């Protein structure tokens, strides 16, 4: 008889985490547009928490591990209290 396992609690998803002032936040995506959307979302959430961008938010390409890996796009942001 199979052992009954408790269902796993859902992992904390990024969208539910609190943004900490002064701590770099990283967003990643497969395309520049996807990262841009995530940045907008992150800025909106930060504003709700009384935070604003200090610097960063520049989208750049991160190379893949090998020639077959197209890599990803990423951006890092730092938020501070308004």
């Amino acid at each position, binding site marked *: 008889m199979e052992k009954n396992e408790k269902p796993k609690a859902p992992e904390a998803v990024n969208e539910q985490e609190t943004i900490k002032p002064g701590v*770099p936040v990283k967003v990643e995506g497969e395309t*520049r547009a996807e*990262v*841009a959307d995530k*940045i907008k979302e992150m800025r909106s959430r930060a504003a709700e928490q009384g935070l*604003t*961008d*200090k*610097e*960063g*938010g*520049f*989208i*750049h*390409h991160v*190379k893949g591990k090998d020639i077959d890996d197209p890599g990803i*796009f990423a*951006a*890092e942001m730092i938020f501070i209290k308004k």
Partner: protein
Amino acid sequence: MGQNFRAFVGSTPAAVAEATNCQVTISGNMEDSSTKDSESSWTEEQMVSKQWSVSVDNVDSTLASLRALITQFNSDEKTTVGWDRTSGAQNRVAQNENFARSGDAILNDISIQANNRSTITITCQYQGSGALS
């Protein structure tokens, strides 16, 4: 406004501090492909390769950044360089414009302008290595 167009440099790219000017150059190297069969005297150009570079002037009265720049120059290592429109308190927040681009580049030129009774300006040029994305 030119003030809001800034260069970003570094593995976690950040706007170059105390910058006063930046210049982006994207150019193609052309080659005349006309032959004796060509029916006119005009050249028939085709682009055989492309290149890009970013040059940044920044004020550095204490020369605090110079040592790190020379170390980077000597290393020949690539770093991420790009550009975007900016805003925010120190004008360092990227706005993710559709013209923003970045790529790997090598610091290939450092020049220091130190005139008497004037602030010191360091100019760095990054030559792109590979495509912009």
